[in-house]
C-alpha cells in the first residue's frame, strides 16, 4: 500500500513537472508576438495557398473536377489539416536537446530531481499546443461555414491519433538529438528525418497520388501513420485502416522508439563531459 502511494506521488510529481515545463514553453512562444504571428501565417497559409494554386492549374489543365478521389476543395482541407498537424508534431524543430549537450546546459538537469525526457516532452508539447488549438478552430470553422463530412467521432479519434504521433515523433527525434553525445552536429540528421517524414507522410501531396509500389513500401514505415491516415480520417476520407489499427501501429512504434530512446540516452549520458563543470 505504501509502495503504491509512493508510485502515485512520484507520478503526480512528474505530471506537475511536465505541466510546468509546458507552461514555460507556451509563455516563451508568445514572448515575441509580432514575429510569432507573422511567422505562423507565413509558414501555414502560404504553403497551403501555393499548393492550392498549383493543383488548381493542374485540374484546369486536365479539365477535371476530381483526381484520385480528391476535389479541389477537399485538397485545400487536406493541406490545411496536414500542415497544422505537421507543425504540431514537428513542434520544436531540431537542436532542442543537442544545444544542452553541446553547451553544457544538461548539467543542471542532471542535478535536478526530474526526468530530462519528461521535462523536454513538456516543452515539446508546449510548442505544439498552439497548433493543436488551431487545428480544432480550423475544423470547427470549416464545419460551420463550409460544411463537410467531418463527424465528431472522426475528429476526436484523428485528434487523439495525432497526439500519439507527436509522442512517437518526439521519441524518435530526441533519440537522434542524443546522438550529439557522440557527433559534433546532428542538424543534418534531423533535416534528413524531417524530409523523409514529409515525403512519406503525405505533407507534399496525398499518398494516393504516389505509384502503388511506393505506397505499398511506405506501409512498412511509420510515416503514413503519423499524419496521412489520421488526416484522412479527420477530413472524412476512406482510410484502409480503422482508428484502432492505426492506434495499435502507432503504439507499437511508441514502444520501439521509447526503448531506442532509453538505450541511446543510457549509452550517451556516460559520454557526457559537461562543458563548464
Amino acid at each position, binding site marked *: 500500500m505504501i509502495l503504491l502511494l509512493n508510485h502515485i506521488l512520484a507520478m503526480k510529481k512528474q505530471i506537475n513537472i511536465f505541466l510546468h515545463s509546458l507552461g514555460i514553453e507556451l509563455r516563451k512562444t508568445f514572448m*515575441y508576438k509580432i514575429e510569432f504571428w507573422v511567422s505562423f501565417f507565413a509558414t501555414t497559409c502560404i504553403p497551403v495557398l*501555393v499548393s492550392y494554386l*498549383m493543383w488548381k492549374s493542374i485540374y484546369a489543365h486536365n479539365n477535371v473536377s476530381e*483526381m*484520385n478521389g480528391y476535389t479541389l476543395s477537399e485538397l485545400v482541407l487536406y493541406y490545411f489539416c496536414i500542415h497544422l498537424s505537421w507543425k504540431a508534431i514537428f513542434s520544436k524543430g531540431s537542436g532542442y536537446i543537442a544545444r544542452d549537450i553541446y553547451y553544457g546546459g544538461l548539467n543542471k538537469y542532471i542535478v535536478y530531481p526530474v526526468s530530462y525526457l519528461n521535462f523536454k516532452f513538456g516543452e515539446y508539447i508546449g510548442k505544439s499546443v498552439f497548433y493543436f488549438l488551431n487545428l480544432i478552430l480550423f475544423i470547427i470553422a470549416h464545419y460551420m461555414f463550409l460544411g463537410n463530412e467531418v463527424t465528431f467521432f472522426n475528429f476526436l479519434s484523428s485528434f487523439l491519433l495525432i497526439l500519439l504521433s507527436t509522442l512517437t515523433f518526439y521519441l524518435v527525434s530526441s533519440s537522434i538529438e542524443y546522438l550529439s553525445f557522440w557527433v*559534433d552536429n546532428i542538424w*543534418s540528421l534531423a533535416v534528413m528525418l524531417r*524530409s523523409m517524414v514529409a515525403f512519406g507522410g503525405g505533407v507534399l501531396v496525398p499518398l494516393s497520388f504516389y505509384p502503388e509500389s511506393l505506397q505499398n513500401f511506405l506501409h512498412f514505415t511509420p510515416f503514413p501513420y503519423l499524419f496521412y491516415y489520421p488526416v484522412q480520417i479527420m477530413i472524412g476520407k476512406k482510410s484502409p485502416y480503422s482508428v484502432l489499427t492505426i492506434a495499435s501501429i502507432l503504439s507499437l512504434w511508441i514502444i520501439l522508439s521509447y526503448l531506442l530512446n532509453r538505450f541511446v540516452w543510457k549509452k550517451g549520458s556516460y559520454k557526457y563531459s559537461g562543458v563548464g563543470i
Partner: protein
Amino acid sequence: MRYLKLYAHFVRFSFTKALQFRLDFTFRIVMDLVFHTLNLIFFKILFNHTDAIGGWDESQVTLFVASFILFDGIYMTIFASNAWWFPEHINKGELDLYLTKPVSPLFIFSLKEFAANSFVNLFFGIGIFTWALTQVEFSFSIFSLLIYVFLIINGTTLFYLMQTLMTLPVFWTQSPRGFDLVLHGMDPILKYPMGVQNQALRVIFTFLLPMNLVLALPAKFFFGEDVLTSLVLTLLISILFWSFILFLWTRGLKRYSSASS
C-alpha cells in the same frame, strides 16, 4: 583585391574546420542528396497525373528543379551559415569585433563562413543541372545559358538579401530569430513554377518580396517567355532591392548598442 585575399582566407579556414568534423561533413552531403532526390521524385509523381504545371512541361519543370538544386548548392555554400548566425551576432554583441576591423562589416558578416560540405554538393547540383539541360525539348544558345546561370547567381544573392531583410529587425526588437521563419514558409513560391501564381501573388513576389526573381523569372527568360521583360525586371529590381537592404543595414547599425552597453 584585398577583399578577394580575405575571402580566400575564409575559404581555407572553413575547409580546415569542416575536415576536422568528418562525420558531420558526410552527414551534410547525404542530407542534401536525400533532400534533392525527394524533390525530384515529388515532381515526377505530379507528372504521373498531368503533362504540364503552370504552363511548363516535364522537361522544363525538371530544369527548373535542377536550377533550384544549383541555387541551393550556391546558397548553402556561401551564405546559409552566415545568415543563420546573423541574429545571434547582433543579440550577443559580437558585431563589435567586426565593426572595429578595417573592412566592410557587412562583407565579413555575410561571407565569413564558407560551408565546405555544401561545396561538395554544389557539384551534385551542377551535375543534375547539366543532365536536365540535355532533357529540354527546345534549343538554346550558349550565350542565353550563360545569362541564365548569371541570373541564378544573382537570384542567390537576392535570396540572401531577403534573408537579411527578415533578420534585420533584430536590431530593433532583439528577438532571437527575427522573421527568418517567414522565408522558410515561402519555400513553395521558390520551388513551384511561376505560372501557378495568381496576379496578386505575382505582383507581391516580384516587386515587394522578389522571390520570383530568384529562379522563376530567370527560367522564364531561358525558356524564351517575355525575354526582355524578365531580364530587365530582374536586373532593375535587384539593384533597387540591394540599395534598400544597404539603407536598412546602415539604419540598423546606428541602432546597434552592443550587448553590455
